[in-house]
């Protein structure tokens, strides 16, 4: 009698929500960012958000999630009395043809929101929108099984997917209003918290899934953004990708450009280059390497969209 071969060990699979393990440590008690908080304990993104909210409070501005396009000179004006290094860099960007910016709210989601907006807008302005949308939706559809493969529950992400897919489809298919998506509708969609945040969440999950399915490519670069300690893939994704309002860095940008097959350029406006040049960090994942990249403007702790022409 032959004994049946032992069944292979089950593949390690994340539990539906990939829940963190718990250890018992005493808690340190509630703490808030107050006027007594030591600024040096905050992340650059927190400092940016704090600055912006103080500034908005002082000037009575309510900032939308994403703003109308504005001349880059409006940004320059903010630095004219403060930082000549930033002014020089903004002038350099202008000479390179970047005349406009589109600002996003500093809420930790700004990278994902900027990419999402520029990504949808790109399809809307494509020479052949029907073809661009068809390709975009096909790429997006292929991410559904990918999310399930890394252990996310379908019910936990399909609503976010639907929001993004129907926005893309509305570029070519008339909506209940009888109209297809135009610039006004696109801005409205991204200013509506439900639509805008749903799309941000979906992009976060895509980013996380890309890191989880290709751990070898990312593991050497996963560090705790504040402590600088190496982190496990799952832990990094749960804490710094999937959680809402967590700022993105190089790893997240690489992963997102890869999963959406995008070329992205990020201009680093940091006042550091003494010649007034701006360094671009390039992400190249589009099937056509020469495809014009989406351009973002990074200032320490924040991302906006950089636009070359209106």
């Amino acid at each position: 009698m032959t004994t049946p071969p032992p069944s292979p060990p089950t593949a390690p699979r994340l539990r539906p929500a990939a829940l963190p393990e718990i250890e018992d440590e005493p808690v340190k008690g509630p703490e808030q960012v107050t006027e007594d908080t030591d600024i040096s304990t905050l992340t650059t993104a927190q400092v940016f958000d704090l600055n912006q909210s103080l500034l908005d409070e002082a000037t009575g501005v309510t900032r939308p999630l994403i703003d109308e396009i504005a001349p880059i000179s409006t940004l320059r004006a903010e630095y004219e009395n403060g930082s000549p290094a930033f002014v020089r860099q903004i002038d350099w960007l202008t000479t390179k043809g970047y005349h406009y910016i589109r600002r996003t709210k500093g809420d930790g989601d700004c990278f994902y929101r900027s990419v999402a907006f520029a990504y949808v807008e790109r399809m809307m302005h494509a020479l052949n929108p029907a073809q661009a949308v068809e390709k975009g939706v096909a790429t997006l559809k292929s991410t559904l099984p990918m999310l399930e493969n890394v252990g996310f529950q379908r019910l936990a992400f399909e609503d976010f997917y639907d929001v993004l897919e129907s926005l893309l489809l509305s570029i070519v298919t008339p909506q209940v209003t009888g109209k297809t998506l135009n610039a006004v509708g696109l801005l409205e969609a991204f200013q509506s918290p439900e639509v805008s945040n749903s799309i941000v969440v979906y992009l976060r999950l895509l980013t996380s899934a890309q890191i989880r399915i290709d751990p070898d490519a990312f593991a050497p670069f996963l560090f705790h953004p504040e402590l600088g300690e190496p982190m496990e893939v799952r832990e990094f994704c749960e804490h710094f990708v999937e959680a809402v309002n967590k700022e993105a860095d190089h790893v997240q940008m690489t992963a997102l450009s890869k999963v959406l097959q995008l070329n992205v350029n990020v201009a680093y406006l940091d006042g550091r280059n003494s010649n007034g040049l701006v360094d671009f960090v390039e992400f190249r994942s589009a099937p056509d390497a020469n495809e014009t990249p989406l351009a973002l403007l990074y200032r320490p702790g924040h991302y906006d969209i950089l636009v070359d022409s209106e």
Partner: protein
Amino acid sequence: MASISARRLAKELHEIQTEGCPVGINLLQADDFAAWQFTIEVMGESLYQGEVFTLLFRFDKHYPISSPAVQFVVTDGKTSPVHPHVYSNGHICASILGNEWSPVLSVIAVCLTLQSMLASCKKKERPPDNDRYVRHAPDNPKKTQFHYDGNSP
């Protein structure tokens, strides 16, 4: 079209009703999409053998992008588990309910995390600042900005 929040909660409820809750967790009440209650107990060896607790979930219209407000019920003779992350008023200091909440988590995922938090407890004691916190705590635990120590769930 129903809001994302209502659609998602309807799906979660449907899953609970068709597939049941995990062992040790039972749905007590889910009459609307504003507040749900579950009983929760730790199965097997633990410091909480024989104890059954009640969890209250409150949802706002931005769920699941915004986290649910989750606490143990401490009225009608019910008590919160004595645990270093659980205050005597039922509030829970857990990062997944605060700044590490992710919309990919679900109500059941939260129940499981809290169940596992209790199961792994080595010493029954209250958080060191329990009395001070409970005196000033807001009604909704989401209004508290807890300081997480990196090991809290």
